[in-house]
């Protein structure tokens, strides 16, 4: 029997590390240590089976932790990604004058991210979500360049907006559930379209699917690479995870006169997911900045995750299976995208020296890229196969071609990302930093290791070895790669989009800020202009010529009598 108090250490460990960071002098070795060690409690707890802890001293219904597989898996993967990225950050930021500030924001965001995963009640989730969302701002603007500041402004405006919309939707949801904060009790609570809309927009602004993605391709390139890795790998998943928790499909059969139910939105939202999957690819292919391409690839991948969430509204009886697929997909994308973002820093910071080093780096880089395209033997194949198995349902079969087409598209954008990443090597002559290379390599092999480490994924992996499944997984990748090869052969270049057209919302964000600084409302103040009163008084005095006091007294008496006549009849 393991004490459930272990759950408290999960979000608390990063905060303890935070105190140490603030007190101790800045040092890059310690930073790497603190950033990665503070994830250890989360890893330990997710390994063990620990019952949830009830924290009524915080608020009624506060409850952390769960024995559910999806929570534990997501917690373990998130913590592992943060730990690896944290170790990398400790080294990649070692010459940073603001290392301390970076660590502080990092640790708060980490604590929030872990808390929202283990939260069993809406308030705990919201606390974690805000901690993560707001302190990620510190990571986005960390470099202090003007583009980082612009990106940060847009990020913060949308993060705050998303947060208050989420709060409003959450209040309505809790009210509809008779004040219960526990997610477990929400599937029977009535839901109205306003609350659902608020939640989808509020959480969607974090998840970054089209059309709520606007901050994502701006913020990722601005942030330091390890921060982009956790931002894309872990933090945006919080939006999807939140949607899953806040909007469980209604399992009960509702009364016939129900005007609206969540199921009605399932198909539109699934369409948004598919549009997002394609939009991310199309927009990403036209970009020349590596991290922007990777960010658009995230927009595309978040489309799939949204698709799975919306599918669960239509298939409430398959919720368990869908939850596992969602988590598999989220974890798979988290590791692979994290590895690619770290590569964007690693490939720029040092050039491979020997032929062996070059080969190793190219092969390692290919793993996450192929995994995201859905290649066999990787977590990507597992994720895509398990998703397809659910589309066998006749009601869902019309989506299948779209998913296959988007798998081809994914391959294209990842081929472009791969090309741009390798090209980064040209820009440097320094030797590759070995420690960072090793840390990165650990992340790169995750897409291959993961299906073997996790039994749930291993079962699906075995299925993918069947010949027709192999073919199913390989052909989109092959088509994508051949198109990419042809493009290379013919030296096809995407059109260059002028910078101001790439991100029109940056301009809007600046406009909003400027507008807010201007006077929006006139002062509404009662001015006591004593001078004008004084002239009135003089006039009054002159008017009565000496008898002023008597006349004033008479007026007062008259006023009192009138007042008494008004008041007294009422009182008798």
């Amino acid at each position: 029997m393991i004490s459930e108090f272990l759950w408290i250490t999960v979000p608390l460990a990063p905060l303890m590390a935070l105190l140490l960071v603030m007190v101790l002098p800045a040092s890059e070795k310690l930073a790497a240590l603190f950033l990665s060690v503070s994830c250890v409690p989360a890893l330990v707890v997710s390994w063990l089976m620990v019952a949830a802890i009830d924290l009524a001293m915080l608020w009624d219904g506060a409850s952390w932790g769960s024995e559910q597989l999806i929570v534990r898996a997501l917690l373990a993967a998130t913590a592992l990604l943060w730990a690896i990225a944290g170790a990398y950050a400790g080294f990649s930021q070692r010459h940073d004058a603001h290392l301390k500030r970076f660590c502080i924001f990092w640790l708060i965001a980490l604590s929030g991210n872990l808390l929202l995963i283990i939260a069993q009640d809406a308030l705990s989730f919201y606390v974690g979500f805000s901690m993560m969302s707001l302190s990620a701002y510190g990571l986005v603007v960390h470099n202090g360049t003007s583009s980082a500041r612009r990106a940060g402004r847009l990020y913060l405006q949308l993060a705050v907006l998303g947060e208050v919309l989420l709060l409003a939707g959450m209040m309505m949801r809790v009210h509809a559930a008779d004040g219960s904060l526990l997610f477990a009790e929400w599937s029977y609570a009535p839901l109205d379209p306003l609350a659902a809309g608020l939640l989808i927009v509020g959480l969607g602004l974090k998840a970054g699917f089209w059309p709520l993605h606007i901050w994502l391709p701006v913020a990722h390139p601005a942030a330091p690479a390890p921060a982009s890795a956790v931002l894309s790998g872990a933090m945006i998943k919080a939006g999807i995870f939140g949607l899953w928790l806040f909007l469980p499909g209604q399992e009960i059969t509702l009364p016939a006169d129900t005007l609206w139910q969540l199921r009605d939105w399932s198909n539109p939202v699934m369409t948004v997911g598919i549009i997002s999957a394609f939009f991310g690819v199309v927009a990403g292919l036209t970009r020349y900045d590596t991290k922007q391409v990777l960010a658009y690839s995230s927009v595309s991948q978040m489309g799939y995750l949204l698709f799975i969430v919306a599918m669960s509204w239509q298939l409430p009886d398959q919720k368990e299976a869908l939850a596992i697929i969602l988590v598999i997909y989220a974890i798979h994308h988290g590791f692979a995208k994290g590895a690619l973002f770290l590569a964007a820093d690693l490939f720029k910071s040092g050039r491979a020296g020997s032929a062996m080093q070059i080969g190793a780096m190219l092969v390692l880089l290919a793993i996450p890229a192929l995994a995201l395209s859905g290649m066999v033997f990787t977590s990507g194949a597992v994720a895509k196969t398990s998703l397809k198995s659910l589309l066998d349902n006749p009601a869902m079969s019309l989506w299948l071609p779209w998913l296959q087409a988007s798998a081809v598209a994914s391959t294209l954008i990842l081929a472009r990302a791969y090309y741009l990443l390798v090209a980064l090597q040209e820009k440097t002559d320094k030797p590759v930093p070995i420690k960072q290379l090793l840390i990165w390599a650990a992340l790169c092999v995750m897409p291959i290791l993961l299906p073997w480490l996790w039994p749930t994924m291993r079962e699906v992996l075995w299925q993918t070895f069947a010949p027709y499944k192999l073919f199913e997984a390989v052909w989109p990748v092959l088509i994508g790669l051949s198109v990419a090869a042809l493009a290379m052969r013919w030296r096809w270049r995407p059109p260059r989009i002028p910078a101001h057209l790439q991100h029109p919302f940056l301009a809007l964000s600046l406009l909003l800020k400027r507008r807010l600084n201007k006077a929006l409302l006139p002062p509404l103040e009662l001015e006591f202009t004593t001078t004008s009163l004084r002239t009135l008084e003089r006039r009054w005095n002159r008017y009565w010529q000496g008898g002023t006091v008597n006349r004033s007294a008479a007026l007062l008496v008259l006023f009192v009598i009138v007042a008494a006549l008004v008041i007294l009849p009422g009182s008798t």
Partner: protein
Amino acid sequence: MTSAAFFSYTSLLPPLIILSSLIPGLLIFATPEAATRQRVLLNLSGIALKLILVAFMLFGVSQGQTFRFELPFLPGAPLVLHGDSLALQFVTLSSVLWLATTIYAIGYLEGSPLRSRFFGYFSLCVSATVGLALAGNLITFVLFYELLTLATFPLVVHRGTPQALRAGRVYLAYTLGGGTLLLMGVAMLHSVISTPDFIPGGYLLALTSEHSFVLQTAFALMIAGLGVKAALIPLHSWLPQAMVAPAPVSALLHAVAVVKAGAFGIIRVVYDVYGAEASAVLTLTQPLLWLAAATIIYASIRALQQQDIKRRLAFSTVSQVSYITLGVALLGPLAAIGAIVHLVHQGLMKVTLFFCAGNFAETLGIHKVQEMDGLGRRMPWSMAAFTIGALGMIGVPPIAGFISKWYLGMGALEVGQDWVIWILVGSALLNAAYFLPLIYRGWFGKPPVKGWPENNFTDRRFETHWMLLMPALFTALLSLLVGIFAGSVFSPLGWSEFIITQEFAL
């Protein structure tokens, strides 16, 4: 009342709590200017005594004891001090913040002239606040309400500059005018039913059908009178002007004494004089609700335009105090919890912000928002406290402000006034718009190349005088703790729920 009962400890405790700051205050007036040590001793012993007495009373009330003191005063209107749970919420807040503010003021005014006068009035001000909190009926309330006006005026004009004197005149014109309106409203009610004690659920329900006009007029007059101190629009403009006062006074005015006296009065009038039921029957609170909502939004927008830190904070106060009025006017138990707990939460957060603003001004001569660039590097602790206070005001969990906002929102949904959610959403966005730039400048801005406008206290162990820093850290920590441990019995939230079970007879 027999003499034995008169001298029992339950009846003597309320006046003793008032006297514990009144007597040191009067003695301080008599101390010579140079006798710093004596003055500090008087101040601190008064605070210590008051805190002990308040702790006694808190324990007693939680055990179900009643503390009541009565003196004959007017026919049908005795002078009553009554320590009920609602009064204690305010008394405890005042006493704790008085401790922080006194320490702060001692550090702030070190070496400046006229300190005996300042601390004398300072103690009187707290006595009046505590008296107002303990007032057991409307007449007693009015008495202390006016005393508070008179005791704070010398503090507002303390610096004696033309600007301060002008602010003082405006302050006096507004508050005395408000006091008159309040008195008229109280007199009207007195003519109908004399002045019984405050009682949960009110004492006017039986009169609603017969005297509805008088009751409505009296309500409007009293709310207008209280609305001056609670800074409801359009009666708020004395507050930003009173910013010229020294920082500890601004902190006291904004967090505890004056604005809270108005808000507390509104709570008393709505819940303990009219009662939720009678207010609903007479449809008194709907206009008040609109007014509070308008104030919240209007003042937040005005705060955006202020470039002076203290003025920005002042408009923020106007907006935040109206949360209390909003919660009261919603007339539901959850909203009432939100209102009553915000009385404390807003106090803790706003006092933190003013302490920090004062620290910036005293240490580096920073008064404007634009000058805050890079403050976090020179004064990390003050800036951290400021950040906690500001984020709390926005409503970021787990800081105290979030708890109030949550209860107000849930309370609005509970009584079917869903639109109030949008007021809260708008206010949170506006709060973010006027607080986040300050935090950004503090932590991410680059310190001025030419150096700070001033640079004091560089030889100290801390970034500033310890007496300026510690109170700010103390209140920042408190606003964090009462938010995190809101669910425990001893939190302001727990106590507010205790109050509401009595008010709404749940």
